[in-house]
């Protein structure tokens, strides 16, 4: 479902060109759980940001479900984020003024969906946060916040879930819970997942590992 060929991304910072991606090649099958490893600054997050439509690629080929990201306008990329991808970040990134439930609801509202589909309540029970939904993020533990963030990322049933170091801020106990959840989402709901991680133990949860260095995949 993902086809990437010779993908390049250059950031212009003042007069300096930063070559974050220098020719990435990658294909991912539907239903795959792929882990991306590699040192800091190797371009992992940049690759995710492009896949998630947060920033346009500079050159090369990149398709998600046949849609060409290189030719997309800003509005089309907004639409891609709305309908096709879900993000989970290292820092949870929940809206602090809303409750857990409202954080999930607003993602649905942005996508223009009125009510939860029945499938989602199954997912919620899997995530084990049903009793915590009325709380604001600051009243939740890191592990709970990350599970709410996962719920929010998949509420609109995206084809692709992108998780950028989702266990980076969690202790080993909570990391294991979150990683188990991701694996069950993948197994039981056939959710396609791409996950960035430094941790070899975490990387073992995926079906396959690719490594990045200096803006390329090895």
């Amino acid at each position, binding site marked *: 479902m993902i086809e990437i060929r010779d993908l390049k991304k250059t950031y212009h910072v003042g007069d300096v060109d930063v070559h974050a991606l220098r020719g990435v090649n990658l294909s991912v099958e539907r239903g795959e759980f792929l882990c991306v490893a590699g040192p800091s600054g190797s371009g992992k997050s940049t690759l995710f*940001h492009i896949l*998630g439509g*947060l*920033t346009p690629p500079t050159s090369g080929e990149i398709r998600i479900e046949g849609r060409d990201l290189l030719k997309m306008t800003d*509005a089309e990329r*907004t*639409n891609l*984020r*709305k*309908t096709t991808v879900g*993000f989970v*970040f290292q820092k949870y*990134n*929940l*809206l*602090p*003024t*809303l409750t857990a439930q*409202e954080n999930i*609801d*607003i*993602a649905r*509202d*942005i*996508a223009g969906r009125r009510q939860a589909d029945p499938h989602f309540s199954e997912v919620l029970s899997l995530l084990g946060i049903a009793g915590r939904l009325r709380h604001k993020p600051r009243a939740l533990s890191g592990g709970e916040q990350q599970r709410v963030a996962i719920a*929010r990322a998949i509420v609109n049933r995206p084809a692709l879930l992108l998780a950028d170091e989702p266990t980076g801020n969690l202790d080993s106990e909570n990391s294991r819970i979150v990683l188990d959840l991701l694996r069950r989402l993948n197994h039981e709901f056939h959710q396609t997942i791409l996950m960035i991680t430094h941790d070899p133990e975490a990387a073992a949860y995926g079906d396959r590992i690719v490594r990045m260095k200096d803006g390329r995949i090895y």
Partner: protein
Amino acid sequence: MINRLVLENFKHRPVRTLLTALAIGIQVTLILTLVGLSFGMLNDIAKRTEGTGADLVVLPPDASIIGFSQTMAEGIVSKVRELPHVALATGILMQPIGGINYITGIHLNEFTQMSGGFEYLAGGPFQQPDDMIVDEVYARGAKIHVGDTVNLGKPWHVCGIVVPGKLSRTFAELKTVQERYSATGQISRIYVKADNPANIPAIQSELQQKLPTYGVYRMEELVSLMSVNNVPMLRQFTDVIIGVGLVIGFLVVFLSLYTAVLERTREIGILKALGAGPGYILDILMRETILLSVFGTITGILMSYGVRALLSAFVPSFTMEIVYSWWPFAAILAAIGSLIGAIYPGLKAARQDAIEALSYD
């Protein structure tokens, strides 16, 4: 769902929300107070003019409807009195004594005949040349009692306090006023009463013929001319206050939203990552702006009642009306000022880069 976010944003920064609404409220109060005073004072002057009981009024050449800077010769009164169908004619002199107040020189007997006479709350008519009658509003505002001596450029001795509603708030003998303020033989208005209301038009045309350069008005004509648009400068002054109000609203909302957008950089980034486009972000900020201006307008309207209460307690001669018909206009002005103020912060938020915002701490 957006409304929920907007409300939570307000609750998250209650002081900023209240101060912003208060500042917009001040804009609204400023406008409503000025308009309320314009309407109130003019209506009050109109009512008191009607209180003279006159059917016609003669103004000196070039005199304005509510101004008293022009005068005419007292001798004209006797000529007016000789015209057919004129039952009564009396001249008065309005002498400014600072602020919005005038001391009005009258012939007490003639004025009593025309107006039906004063109703005394304390004291009684003039006894000495330097006696002064004041109305209850003036007495209350200046804390005056019968027997007091009041200095209005010259000392006046208060002999009576009367029910308000008859032409002026302060009265003295015409002759004394003329002498004391170097206007011997001068008057500012002639009030005329017809022997029969049916003869009023006839008297008017007669007067217009005899005194072609003078202003000759029937009472209802004069009263209907006492509107904001006919008072020199008042219209312009109102426009200036409206302009100042718009600028206040603009600046306050600009600053408030600008800091809100800076503070919410990360949240805006999150919303964008969830698929919110520029329209969604703008929608949130516009709803906040409209809600702030609605809060502000309500605050402003409530405060205008407060201003009226304060004025009537401390400066009773400033008559302020609550002019309901201006509420929608004040609300629209508040909304316009606020929305203009929201443009720049709104565009800044809508254009904000999501990745930078998410890496922002």
